[in-house]
């Protein structure tokens, strides 16, 4: 693990949402990654929350999970490099 979020300036003030479905493996990988970084996040299960599903499609232009919203910036899928970049900023 190259870094922990508490070592990144302002790191723990980020607002992170993850739109996921229960059986989606890539969603789990994202959540595991964020937990490893000791980041707090809202996990939104769009299979149970129809409104959130709409919100996600609107916001991201995607019909695929996971979608990660970090302070309004959107990442599609489990993209470790992009996640790392946004988190470190």
């Amino acid at each position, binding site marked *: 693990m190259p870094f922990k979020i508490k070592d990144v300036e302002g790191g723990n003030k980020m607002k992170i949402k993850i739109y996921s*479905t229960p*059986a*989606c*493996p*890539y*969603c*789990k*990988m994202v959540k595991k990654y964020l937990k490893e970084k000791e980041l707090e996040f809202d996990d939104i299960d*769009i*299979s149970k929350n*129809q409104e959130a*599903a709409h919100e996600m*499609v609107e916001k991201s*232009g*995607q*019909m*695929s*999970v996971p979608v990660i919203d970090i302070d309004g910036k959107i990442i*599609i*899928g489990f993209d470790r490099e992009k996640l790392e970049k946004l988190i470190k900023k």
Partner: protein
Amino acid sequence: MKEKKQKIQCEKIFDSIIIGAGPAGITAGIYLARRNLCVLIIYETLGGQTALTADIENYMGFRFISGEDFTKKLDDHLEEYDVTLAEEKVENLKKNKKLFTIETSKNIYKGKTVIIASGARHKKLGVPGEEKFLTKGVAYCATCDAPLFRNKEVAIIGGGNSALESAIQLESYAKKIFILTINKDLEGEDILIEKVRSFKNIEIIPNAITKEIKGEKFVTGIVYEKNKKINEIPLQGVFIEIGYEPNSGIFDVKKNNQKEIVIDNKNQTSEKGIFAAGDVTEVPVKQIIVAAGEGAKAAISAADYLSRFH
């Protein structure tokens, strides 16, 4: 960290480097660790395709288990042994005298043997619109994305087990499901076919060749040819389930015309010291139980090779 069954002293050179952590790779890892050999598993997705499978009902000992729970069990089992794990992408495999060098996105590893268990990935349809609308209505993982198609009309392209499993995933969400298969009927396990046929919101279209996926911002329809006539169905989702292609591209060993790695009955590839197991090989049946068995065979063959290695 749990107590390991044994502690293996590893030098800088691994006895065996396994590429892939699906059922084949993990089985091979455990078999080799049980022989006190020094093993590294390099992988991208723990569980491989199993992690993407919804329900497993044909692995002996489990009447029913989800892909997720099965992957967890594989992981727990592997955790018992002193196997080094690296979540990295393999970029290249070279042989230098008797040793193999593997370069990943982050590291360089050396090993005396290699077991390729890199599995397979979804085959692309190769029609206009497929790439353009990927994640905008075109999907390859019904397990993941089915809930996004609530009350929508979707097509599944393909007529085998994967297509049938996708239909089962989508049934409770989608308003209507079209299954388009190029064959004259569904193929796959009878138990799955019966289940899918029993759904009220299913329409099976045999002898259908998909020509194009249409859309604007998102998918809006599909064009197919049947009996030399072009048809179009307006819909919002297309799930492509036409089988798999092996993740064999970077390996310089003999392959068949489907790019599957050619192995002998001991899982030896055309290159001495490189073994292969599971869906990346030409083994005719792509099933979890077969991949696990092949992983065991490859590990035992690699161990035999190592016993003569000097």
